[in-house]
């Protein structure tokens, strides 16, 4: 701020900001790269006056007073230009002269992100590093009891089933009577969750899809990926790669007329259809793709005019009860592909998850249920929805699984868990914990963005600007100047690396259990936790 300017309630100092720029005058070469790269213009060249008072009490000479100036990097303190801690400045600095670091106390900025009455919106994550999944241990390590397997040497078939599984006698009956048998896919249990074309940049989306295709075709891993709600590029719809794709339909129905037009020309069926009713990161909050992201390309894929904001309502508008909503949507989506493609709903984890599940158990078509926990990520949401709305995935998933067990249907309706899996980097451990709690597979988004594209977000309020199209890595931007920083091939390579290493880690966890050809779904006697309340709630062993 200017020295004598009036201060307002929202006048902030560097001290008040969550991220502070440490800049070294000694090291800086004034190359300009940090200010050129800063996505939010939080830093600028500053002119600094340096006064030197040269006095010597005994000197005959007159005391001196000299003003010099020097130039350096200054952090702006206006809330609108606050540093987001992304660290791109440090990345491009040739001399390691600049670095954002976290304030050591609660910042004041958060109280001033409501300028003009606009509630804070952002992208990213909850920024809550803790979580129950990391605390779960695999305590059943068979050495002599079960046939312990060697994760490195033994053959494994890490597969799971997506689709409605009939009880054997019912299945046999239908075979005999040539009845309808629900389609079931044998897929890899780690699914890339729904991130739309639009939320993600073209190279990011293409890179993910290419990586998935590579894993299927070159590595023999039947990985599948959800499109998110933003349609699907026409070429992909008409390619053989569609078989790895889960097409998502959500309340905005974006891109679905293009999908319908493509059905007659499809070479293969899609892997599955996911009906999105809710998102773990922001239950009850709809989606919004801001108008500035809706360029020609997005407009073509979504089948909308360019340059308009695209809201997805929090709910599907023509559905008024669980029974109607689920039955109607599942029927419609099955019909589109002649009942050859599994259709399942995806909901936010909630204390009412069981009601949805129970409804599905009575619906003979439901191919599964995906449940997304509060730690899921999002491209854009109200801060309050991100931080305070939602339900942890572990207990939601567990409740559902145990309910299926009570009904004797645990092998009939697969559950898929998502939301914060691997948020602290422990992808395989978190995934295995959820599988042993009862999930048939897991969905991940943020982890993929971090591992495959170098997303700078962390659980400490870093970056979080997915919503404004300025992603410094080009992951969530529709501006070629930003997204061309990302190479689709690099993304694909990292997707492959991530899956192959995940596979190794998952084997390391399941091999000591003697499992090599079927996932230990619901094998909760292998789990322990040093938290009595959590152990009781999840019905796993309390270990200390």
């Amino acid at each position: 701020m200017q020295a004598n300017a009036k201060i307002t309630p929202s006048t902030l100092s560097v001290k008040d900001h969550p991220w502070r720029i440490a800049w070294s005058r000694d090291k800086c070469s004034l190359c300009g790269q940090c200010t050129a790269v800063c996505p939010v213009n939080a830093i600028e060249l500053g002119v600094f006056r340096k006064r030197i008072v040269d006095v010597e009490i005994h000197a005959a000479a007159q005391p001196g007073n000299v003003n010099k100036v020097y130039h350096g990097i200054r952090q702006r303190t206006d809330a609108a230009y606050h540093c987001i801690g992304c660290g791109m400045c440090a990345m491009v600095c040739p001399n390691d002269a600049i670095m954002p670091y976290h304030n050591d106390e609660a910042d004041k900025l958060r109280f001033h992100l409501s300028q003009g009455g606009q509630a804070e919106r952002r992208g990213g994550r909850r920024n809550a590093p803790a979580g129950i999944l990391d605390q779960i241990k695999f305590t059943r390590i068979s050495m002599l009891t079960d046939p312990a397997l060697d994760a490195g040497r033994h053959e494994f078939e890490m597969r799971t089933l997506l689709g409605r599984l009939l009880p054997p006698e019912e299945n046999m009956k239908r075979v005999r009577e040539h009845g309808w048998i629900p389609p079931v896919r044998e897929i890899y249990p780690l699914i890339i969750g729904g991130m739309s074309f639009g939320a993600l940049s073209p190279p990011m989306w293409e890179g993910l899809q290419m990586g998935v295709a590579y894993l299927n075709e070159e590595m023999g891993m039947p990985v599948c990926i959800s499109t998110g709600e933003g349609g699907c590029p026409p070429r992909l719809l008409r390619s053989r790669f569609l078989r790895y794709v889960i097409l998502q339909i959500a309340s905005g129905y974006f891109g679905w007329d293009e999908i319908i037009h493509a059905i007659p020309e499809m070479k293969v069926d899609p892997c599955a259809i996911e009906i999105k009713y809710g998102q773990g990161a922001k239950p009850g909050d709809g989606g919004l793709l801001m108008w500035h992201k809706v360029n020609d390309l997005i407009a073509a894929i979504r089948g909308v005019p360019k340059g308009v904001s695209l809201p997805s309502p929090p709910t599907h508008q023509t559905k008024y009860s669980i029974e109607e909503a689920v039955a109607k949507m599942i029927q419609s989506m099955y019909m589109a592909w002649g009942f050859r493609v599994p259709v399942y709903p995806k909901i936010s984890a909630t204390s009412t998850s069981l009601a949805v599940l129970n409804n599905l158990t009575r619906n003979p078509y439901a191919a599964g249920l995906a449940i997304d926990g509060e730690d899921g990520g999002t491209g854009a949401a109200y801060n309050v929805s991100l931080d305070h709305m939602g339900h942890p995935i572990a207990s939601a998933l567990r409740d559902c699984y145990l309910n299926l067990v009570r009904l004797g249907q645990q092998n009939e309706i697969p559950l898929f868990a998502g939301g914060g899996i691997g948020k602290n980097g422990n992808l395989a451990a978190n995934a295995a914990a959820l599988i042993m709690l009862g999930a048939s597979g897991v969905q991940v988004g943020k982890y993929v963005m971090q591992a495959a594209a170098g997303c700078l977000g962390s659980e400490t309020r870093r970056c979080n600007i997915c919503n404004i199209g300025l992603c410094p890595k080009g992951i969530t931007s529709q501006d070629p100047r930003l997204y061309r920083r990302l190479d689709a091939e690099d993304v694909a390579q990292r997707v492959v690396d991530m899956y192959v290493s995940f596979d190794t880690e998952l084997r390391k966890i399941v091999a000591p259990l003697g499992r090599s050809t079927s996932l230990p779904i619901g094998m909760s006697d292998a789990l322990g936790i040093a938290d009595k309340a959590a152990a009781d709630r999840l019905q796993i062993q309390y270990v200390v």
Partner: protein
Amino acid sequence: MDDQQYYLISGRQNDIRIESRVLEEQIQEAVAKGRRKIQVEAFGQHGIGGRLWRAGDKPLEIRVTGHSGQRLGSMGYANTRIENFGPASDDVGWLNGGAEIIVHGHAANGVANAMAQGKIYVAGSIGARGMTMTKQNPRFAPPELWVLGSVGDYFGEFMAGGIAVICGIEAQTPDNILGYRPLVGMVSGKVFFRGPHGGYSKSDARLMPVSDADWQWLEENFSRFLGAIGRVELYDELAERERWQVVAARGPMDKVVRKTRSISEFRQSAWNRELGPGGLVGDLTDLDMSPIPVIVTGELRRFVPVWENRVYAPPCEASCPTGIPVHERWRLVREGRMDEAVDMALAYTPFPASVCGYLCPNLCMQACTRHSSGMASVDITQLGKSSISAKVSELPPAAGKKIAVVGGGPAGISVAWQLRRAGHDAVIYDMSDKLGGKMSRLIPRSRIPADVLEAELERIREVLAHVHLQQELTKDDVEQLKADHDFVVIAAGATKPRILPVAGKERMIAANDFLARAQDGSIDPGKNVVIIGAGNVGCDAAVEARRLGAVDITLIDVQEPASFGQERQHAEAAGAKFLWPCFTRQITEEGVVLESGEMLAADTVVISIGDVPDTDFLPDSVKVEKGFVRVNEYFQTTDPQIFAIGDIVRPGLLTDAIGAGRKAAAALREIAEGKRPAMDRAHMIDTARVSLEYFDPRQSVFSGVEQCGTSCASCGACRDCGICESICPRGAISRKQLEGKDYEYAVDPDLCIGCGFCAGACPCGIWAMRENDPLH
């Protein structure tokens, strides 16, 4: 079998199987007693024939008949030769340390597991996990496993040394003599085999032709093996070299992971081939999606610098009602063009010395960017006072429109001045006998030296040839002016004093009358003077009263006096007292009686609570609202032929009146030419763009106009300092000389990275970073 030579130990006593421990004790005891040939009649005992070091270097022969148990010959020593007549159970030669073990039959799972030295000859086939985890210790020869038939599944897992020879004769699995998934995790050693195989771990091992050295070794050892198992007749069958192959472990650097296409190859040959050129969205866009670096130039920059020279007005110009571009004058001073700096003012005001130098509260200085940072404003009064010497440039012939200006005060003079300079014929009519309105008649000479004002009025008279003084106008006169002229500008000021409706009001003298009579010396105020209304005019009256001999001067007001600046200072210097709140009840011979009952003695009572215009002479076509003439944004009254400016429109400062004159003249010229007047002024620059760090904050007094010039930040107007050229990290900015004295600073887009350093460093706030044009 020559039983005579062998010491017989039976695994049964009294038809009951003895424990492995007891049998072991008996064998060890026999060896300890010097027995070197022992025959064991086995009954499933564990580990027969191992650990017999007590024989020392002497060869030890162990024959095993019956049913040997698990781990035959385990931990065997190099002195020991064990011959098992019949098939063997699991783990033959487990952890073998040198024994030679011959099995005349099949052997079950785990043969040679963890074997480190010695040899195992099997006359049949073996079960699963043979030759696993074997090693070669560099101190010893490698261990060997010879199998006449085939091996079971998972052969050679983790094999870390040794040689296996699988002959494929009378094999249990003749179609795949190496079994399922052999050699996974093999790190050392080799496996010779003869016959078909069903694959092996290619990442760990490699198939090679049998070298001459290998073949020589094999040939030498065939006889030994066949001799040991008693099948020498097979030699010729084994000795067909072309039927043999060898699999050897890969070294650590040689390990291969599964061979797959690179992502690039996959993209070209699978992805793009299936989807079409350009991949996923190649059909929807022709945008270049190739990767770019983070630091970029040209059209890839997110922000581009723009040299916004003179796009925005500096605060001084923007806040000057007259609209003088003060910073431009300081630029001329800096450039050593003092005369031009002085003369330039005349383009804006006919009173650069009187007003800017003396009478104006200098709104330009109040707005000065330096002022907002707590630094001393650049002192315009110094340049103002110098402007007494300003020279009028040559006037164009007065060939344009004819305009009558009613009122010869600052507003009237200003509009006439501007019109005349633009080649129009402006004629001033004034009631007074002096040109200059308030400035000449009312403002005390203590605030402006008479010679300064007179010099400026003289300069005005040179420009404005037609001035008609002592002209009181009526409605009819104004109608006539309309008829005789193209336009009429009313600048008659506010001349009617406001009077308090109190008893004895006739005893009050209006401030304007008082000031005018004070100037011409026709009034003696006496010793006590009370001035009702303590504004600036009241202050002027106090100063004049003091000059004329008053001793006790009191200014009263109903509220805190609004007077400020020089007027107030001069009044206080004259010893005037300020009292408030005071409400006047009546004026008596003695003085002013207040509502409080207090009596302020007064010889003279001056009323200075403001003036209102006299609009009686205006034609009915000119609408008056609340006592003032209504005008539009161009100072045009409701009569389009008549304009109005100055205090008759809205009370204001001298500079407001002069500015109104200038703006009205500009509008009038445009309207006269049939155009719509363009009244837009440049927006004021955001002073945050200006960098004052280059200036000395301790500078509070300026030694002269030169120092003023150098201290002006030149907000919004390039100082041509070249700092941007110097700060640019890529050398992208250069100064370009244009025609005449013009220049510009230009950016080379191919060099610029959009860092904004130019904008950050510019002292004047010229450079701005603008978002680059969208690419899609």
